[in-house]
């Protein structure tokens, strides 16, 4: 039984390789092997969205992907969102609009919000709410998150 498999995944532009068990979830590779703990684990049934990352250009719940599946792929995590010291417009908008309290859902929420705006630069409030249906926040009641996404849409030229 081949217990470990070599993998190589580009995370935030940097190649990360290792030998992992086939059962390892991508979120654990990101957190444990790559040491990027901004990606969170909030549930075990793919509901909460705290583990959301960008996988080969579209969002994925990293708890529902095996590391081995993603070998050869490219991943962006929340740590890869800011451009050096310059925050991503969504990060800025989350900060401006008090769109986070405990912060645990925030990395996944920002990445889900980014996907909304990439598909639809000028979403309605309703479209934003629907676009966030796979991400649970227990602190904010979502309202300021929706506001933040609206503001980011304006900043990013949609709006």
């Amino acid at each position, binding site marked *: 039984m081949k217990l470990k498999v070599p993998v190589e995944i580009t995370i935030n532009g940097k190649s990360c390789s290792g030998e992992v068990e086939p059962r390892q979830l991508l979120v654990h590779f990101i957190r444990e092997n790559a040491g990027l703990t901004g990606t*969170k684990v909030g549930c075990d049934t793919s509901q909460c969205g705290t583990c959301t990352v960008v996988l080969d250009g579209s969002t994925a719940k990293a708890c529902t992907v095996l590391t081995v599946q993603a070998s050869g792929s490219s991943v962006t995590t929340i740590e890869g969102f800011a451009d050096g010291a310059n925050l991503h417009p969504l990060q800025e908008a989350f900060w401006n609009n008090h769109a986070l309290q405990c912060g645990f859902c925030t990395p996944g929420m920002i990445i889900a919000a980014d996907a909304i705006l990439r598909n639809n630069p000028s979403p309605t409030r309703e479209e934003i709410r629907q676009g*966030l249906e796979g991400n649970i926040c*227990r602190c904010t*009641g979502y309202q300021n998150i929706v506001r933040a996404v609206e503001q980011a849409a304006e900043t990013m030229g949609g709006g």
Partner: protein
Amino acid sequence: MTTRVFSSGIRRREDPRLITGRASYTDDIKLPGMVYAAILRSMYAHANIRSIDTSAAAGQPGVIAVYTGADTEGALNGLPCAWLIPNSDLKTPAHPAIAKDRVRYVGDAVAVVVAETRYQAEDALEHIVVEYEPLDAVLNPKDAAQDGAPQLHDDAPNNVAFTWAVAGGDADAAFADADVTVSDVITLPRLIANPMEPRSAIAQWVGATGELTLWNTSQNPHIARFLTCVVTGVPEHKIRVIAPEVGGGFGSKIPYYPDEAITAFCSMRLGVPVKWTETRSENYLATTQGRDHIEEVEMAATSDGKITGLRTTVYAGLGAYLSTAAPGVPTILHGLMYSGAYDIPNISGTIYGVFNNGTPVDAYRGAGRPEATTLIERLVDVLAAELGMDPVEVRRKNLIPKFENGHDVVTGLTYDSGDYGATLDTVLDAAGYSALREEQEQARGEGRLMGVGVSTYVEICGLGPSQVAGAVGFQGGLWESAIVRFHPTGKVNVMVGSSPHGQGEETTFAQIVAEEVGVGVDDVEIIHGDTDLTPMGWGTYGSRTTAVSGAAVTLATRKIKDKSKALAAHLLEAATEDIEYEDGRFFVRGSPDQHKTIQDIALMANVAWDMPEGMEPGLEASAFYDPPNFTYPFGAHLAVVEVDPATGQIDLQRYIAVDDCGVQINPMIVEGQVHGGVAQGVGPVLWEGVVYDESGQPLTGTMLDYALPRADGLPDIEVQSNTTPSPHHPLGVKGVGEAGTIASTPTVYNAVMDALRPLGITRIDMPLTPEKVWRAMQDARNGG
């Protein structure tokens, strides 16, 4: 010029690390040599353990140790209950960290595996063989209290942990004399707190020094240290508890759990750091839950709607064991609030705290007060319907008139200040209440089921005077302390004993310091969550952190200001009483050009080259604030719903919150607390509730079955506020963390019942899932 920083919605200072993924939560921490624990939990709600065989598990790859209750017995003391309410015949059955002979709920810890990786630990759990002898289980708290119910603990006959009564006036006489009485049975479902961060603990025992460090997802690290000492026997001064970034708690991270004790035990046995992190499914079994009330309630009134009496009998499910604060929740935090925003002259309530074969129940956001507010506000609506009055009119008739400094209610509390009519007026105006009622008439004419729900509330928070804490059996104080330390460059560290975990006090506390002595907000760093770095404090819960800990910060900063004045007087060669302060500058009255800034003072105090006779060097002060009374925020909320007559689905269309939490330091944060609180209070009305089957198996075991509010299920929440300062608080602050949760449950429940009133439906148990509503409508249409 004095309010630049205060009442300003400045951006939170904790956010940059959170939005960039750089914050460090407990499970993000990795220590050299760390190993991983996984806990085997009972699959039975109630069973005797005949035998446990761990030999196969011990031989699995990577396994370092397997421990059972036989190992922890004698090494770990039982888990203590820390709220021993008096005059209630309270029973405190033993609560071992790992069950040895008997399990009492699905989730009770049975064994722990420590392995090199978490995956290996999980693998090994499957190789532990436990032989159980299943016993009958009971979940419904009223059923559990009846003769013949399965018994959980030998020392708690009929599973009754306590019987607690509240009384004021003469309720029986009021009911005997009443023009009209109404009654209802209200159930508040068992709720899962669901902070997005699951609980986690890392224990690091260093045998050579006898020191235990515990990183823990705690709302109150100092209490965790205190109770770690009680359970592990490690002396308190040798324990350091660190609550790093904590991802929400909502009450569920107040208790001291078996899990952190087990993790500490493993580290102490093995001499290496041990991490334990629960999965979400495990959280649904092993993390304390909230509510679980069956409330049999009745109200007496005059024919013109004046409430004359309230009587309740409440069965409060406690789960299988007494959690840390459990007995206080359905009693002190519930029964004492029975007067709500009204003058109700005669009140009597009996609350039975009942063990059942469920996960232990403890504080959950609002803790006792949503349960109280729901029963009062529901009865007011039932009374209004009985009298044919508008529910708002009944409320107006009974509201306590405006008061600024103390109002006694018959349950024995003295509310601090209130203007309940004003918040009600504001919400009705904001909603366009009369237009809504007209719209509703029209909708009903079209066969549409539109409903409008209103609720007022008063909550008790700012817990609280320590003398009262002692009198009601809380095994601790409820004061807070702060140390404010100015560095030579004029920058400030503030160390507080409370432990915010999302509420934003790193910002609001900095605003307080900035407001008091004129430094920049960014010149102040708030340090919290580490018992080695911070002074004693009792934690963040009960909407108390800004109210109590913030007061301590204020008082400590005012001491700084006093010393600064004296030092400025010395440096300016004037008398202290002639020194004035404005905007960070100390100057001799009449000569503002000749001044010393707070930074000048900080430098001089720290270098101490030229100090007045007898003045100590340094610019540091500490304060302990023990509140003279609780604070009593209040408000009025309104919801508009429409029920689909074909499906029973409920559309929450509008929600308007008007809250008065006293003076607001950061209105943006206040509004955020209201939003989140409202969402959590709507949850149990529309979606949330734990369901067990008859054998005690939870059927809502994952997020696939337990429905939480999502972005697409909530409307925009319209928020307004009034300001009635607390007369006894140094800043006039009252607290806001739980307001939304307390008000929104009765508001939305009343709205749905209002929508269904034309069909003759008067009650449905929460959560109001579509099928339940549909069935009620079917029954009503069939004449049932």
